[in-house]
C-alpha cells in the first residue's frame, strides 16, 4: 500500500494549513451569503471579506483598496502580465516589449510566451547569473534600449525552484526610471519573508494562500490604483471591475487568518527553519560529497526554507521515487505534463546543462519541519543517490 509521507520536505509546493485557518474556514463554510448581495446575509459575508482584505493589506504592506482577490497565484500572474500588457499597448501601440527573466514560474513564463505567440508581444528574457539572480543594471540596459516600446516588467520576488531572492525594490525603481509598470510574483517570498508592497514600490504583486498556511484556491493581486489592467475574466464586475466572479468568503477568511498567523510567527519560524535548512545542506553534502547546491548561498539572497541540489549522474525522478519509498516527500521542482518531468527551465537559464538539470531535487522546509525530518533525509540520501546512479548508468 502507499506509504503516506511522514517526512514532508515539499512546503514550496504546498504547506499544511494552519489550525486557525482551518477553524476559520470551517466556521465560514457553515455561513450563508454572497458578498455582493444587498440583504443582511450578503452584508455579513461582505463584512468578512472586507475585514479579511484589510488584514491582508496590513500583512503585505498595502492599502485595502489595492487587494484584488483571485483564485490563486496563477490567475493573479495571468491578470498582471496579460492585463497590464493589453492596457499599456492599448494606450500606445508601440509598447510591445515585456521584460522578464527566464527563471519565472510558468504562470508568468508561459503567459509571456503566449502573448508573444498570439498577441504580438516581444519578450526580453533578462539574463540571470549562475545562482539565478538578476541584477538591476541588466534591467536598466534592456529598458534603455528603446524605452518607448516597453509595456511591462515582471520579475519574481523569490524563485520557487532555487530560492533566489531578487533585489525587487531596486528592480522596481529601475522600471520606474523609465515609467514602466513593475509586477512581481511574490508567491514564494510571501510565505517566508516579510514582503511589503509599499516598500517594494511594485505596481502589482502576486500572493497566494496555500504557500503560507491557507487553503488552495485563493490568492490576490495587489494592485496600485494608478494602473488598471484589462480584465481576463468578465462578469459581475467584482473587485473594481478587474476580476469578476463571486468572492469565496470562507477561503478569503482563511487566507487572511493564515497570513496574519504566519506573519506573527515569522521571526521565530524563520530562524528555526534557516537553521534546519543549513543542517539539511550539511547532511546532504556529507552523504553525497559531489552534490552541488543550486541557487544563491544561504543568506539574505536565498529563501530560508529552500535547499536545491544537483546530484551528478542521477535522474531526479528516479531519486524522487526512491525517497518517496522511504516516506520522504520532495520535488524535482519542475513543471509536469502527465507527470512527465521536463528539465527545469530555471536551471537551464542559470547555465546548467540538461543532465545536471534533470539530476536535481528541491527540498523545501516549512512551519511543520522538525530536526527529525532533516535527520531522516540525511540517513537515506546517500544510499538513494547510489541506487539512482546505478540505474542511470545501466
Amino acid at each position, binding site marked *: 500500500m*502507499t506509504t503516506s509521507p511522514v517526512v514532508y520536505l515539499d512546503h514550496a509546493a504546498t504547506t499544511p494549513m494552519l489550525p486557525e485557518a482551518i477553524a476559520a474556514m470551517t466556521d465560514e463554510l457553515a455561513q450563508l451569503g454572497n458578498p455582493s448581495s444587498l440583504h443582511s446575509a450578503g452584508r455579513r459575508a461582505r463584512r468578512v471579506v472586507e475585514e479579511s482584505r484589510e488584514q491582508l493589506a496590513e500583512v503585505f504592506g498595502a492599502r485595502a483598496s489595492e487587494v484584488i482577490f483571485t483564485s490563486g497565484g496563477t490567475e493573479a500572474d495571468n491578470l498582471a502580465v496579460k492585463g497590464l500588457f493589453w492596457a499599456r499597448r492599448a494606450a500606445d501601440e508601440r509598447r510591445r516589449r515585456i521584460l522578464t527573466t527566464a527563471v519565472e514560474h510558468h504562470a508568468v513564463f508561459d503567459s509571456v510566451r503566449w502573448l508573444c505567440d498570439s498577441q504580438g508581444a516581444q519578450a526580453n528574457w533578462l539574463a540571470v547569473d549562475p545562482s539565478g539572480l538578476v541584477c538591476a543594471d541588466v534591467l536598466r540596459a534592456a529598458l534603455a534600449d528603446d524605452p518607448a516600446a516597453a509595456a511591462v516588467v515582471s520579475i519574481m520576488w523569490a524563485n520557487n525552484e532555487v530560492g533566489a531572492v531578487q533585489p525587487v525594490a531596486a528592480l522596481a525603481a529601475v522600471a520606474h526610471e523609465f515609467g514602466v509598470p513593475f509586477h512581481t510574483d511574490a508567491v514564494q517570498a510571501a510565505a517566508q519573508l516579510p514582503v511589503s508592497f509599499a516598500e517594494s514600490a511594485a505596481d502589482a504583486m502576486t500572493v497566494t494562500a496555500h504557500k503560507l498556511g491557507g487553503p488552495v484556491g485563493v490568492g490576490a493581486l495587489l494592485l496600485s490604483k494608478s494602473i488598471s489592467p484589462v480584465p481576463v475574466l468578465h462578469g459581475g464586475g467584482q473587485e473594481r471591475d478587474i476580476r469578476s466572479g463571486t468572492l469565496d468568503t470562507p477561503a478569503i477568511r482563511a487566507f487572511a487568518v493564515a497570513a496574519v498567523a504566519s506573519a506573527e510567527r515569522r521571526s521565530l519560524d524563520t530562524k528555526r527553519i534557516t537553521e534546519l535548512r543549513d543542517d539539511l545542506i550539511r547532511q546532504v553534502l556529507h552523504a553525497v560529497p559531489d552534490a552541488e547546491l543550486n541557487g544563491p548561498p544561504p543568506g539574505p539572497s536565498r529563501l530560508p526554507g529552500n535547499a536545491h541540489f544537483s546530484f551528478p549522474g542521477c535522474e531526479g525522478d528516479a531519486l524522487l521515487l526512491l525517497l518517496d*519509498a522511504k516516506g520522504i516527500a520532495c520535488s524535482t521542482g519542475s513543471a509536469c*505534463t*502527465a507527470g*512527465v518531468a521536463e528539465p527545469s527551465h530555471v536551471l537551464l537559464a542559470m547555465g546548467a546543462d540538461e543532465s545536471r538539470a534533470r539530476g536535481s531535487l528541491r527540498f523545501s522546509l516549512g512551519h511543520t519541519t522538525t530536526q527529525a525530518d532533516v535527520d531522516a533525509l540525511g540517513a537515506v540520501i546517500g544510499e538513494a543517490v547510489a541506487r*539512482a546512479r546505478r*540505474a542511470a548508468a*545501466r
Partner: protein
Amino acid sequence: MSGGVDSATAAARAVDAGHEVTGVHLALSSNPQSFRTGARGCCTIEDARDARRAADVIGIPFYVWDMAERFARDVVDDFVAEYAAGRTPNPCLRCNEKIKFEAVLALGFDAVCTGHYARIEDGALQRAADPGKDQSYVLAVLNADQIAHAMFPLGDTPKSLVREEARSRGLLVADKPDSHDVCFIADGDTKGFLERRLGAEPGAIVDADGAVLGTHDGTYGFTIGQRKGLRLDRPSPDGRPRYVLSIEPVANTVTVGPADALGVREITAIRPVWTGIAPPAAPVDCSVQLRAHGEVHPCTAQASGDELHIYLGDEARGVAAGQAAVLYDGDKVLGSATISAAS
C-alpha cells in the same frame, strides 16, 4: 503500466501474490498527444491518467517515468535505420530488450512485472496459455538475467477472463480497446512516417531479370512478401500476382516476382540470445517462428559463433531481414536471433 487492462490486472495480481508493487508508466513520447486515436498509440496523457487511476484502485504508488529520450534513440531511430538498410524491424522487440526490462530493475526493484501474455517456467520463457494472445515472440529477445527478473502474471489466463477480472476489480480500463500497430506512429501510416524521416528516394521496381516494371519513392516503403501498393506498369506475363522478393537499398531497387520465388529453406540470423538452453554445440532439432503471430516451422538450428543457421523442414514465405527468428521446443523458447539473410 501502459494505461491498458493487461498491465493493470497484472499489477493487481502481483499485489495479491504478496509482492510490494510500484506502478511505473513509461512516457515514451516527448510530445504526448492528449487523447488516444483509436487503437493506436500508448503514452498519451489520457493513458497516463488511466494508469494512475488503476494504481489508485489497486492501492500502489505510481510514477510516470520519462523514457522519451532513450526510446527515441534505442527504438525509433533504430526502427528508421533498419528500414533505411532494407530490413523490416519489430520495434516492440527492441523496446522490450532496451527499455521496458532495463529501465526499472537497476533502481533496486527485484523484478519487472508486465501484462505480457507469456509464462516463465524454470527460468525459461514459454508461450502463453491463450495462443491467440501469446507474446513470447516479442519477449524472446530478453536475456537470461532479464527473464530471471521478470514476472508475467497473465500468462496462464485467456484475455477474455482478464477483462472480466479487471471489471470485478473495479478497474475502469476493463473495456479499453487493445493497442495495435506501432505505438509511436499514431496515424498508423508507417510509410508516411518513414518518408518524413528519410525523405523520398525514387528508384526502380524490377523483376528477377532486371526489367523495370515501375518506380518507388523509397525502398523503405516495402517489406519482403508485400503484394499490395506496388503500382506496377504492366501485369506479369502469366497474369499472376507479384510480390516483393528483395530490397536493395544501396542500388535503391525493389525486386518483385511470383509467389513461388518467395519460398525459403535456409535462414541466417545474427546476435543469438540463448535462454531456454545453453548455447548448443551441436545442431538442434526444434521449431522456429519468423514473425509476430506467424506460423511455426520445423527446423534444425546450428549455432556458429555470432551466427545462427536455420534449416527449415518446410518452405517459409515472406521472410524479412530484421525480424526475429525465435526457436521453440514445443511451447518453450530456446532462444532468438535477428534474421540477416534467407534463401
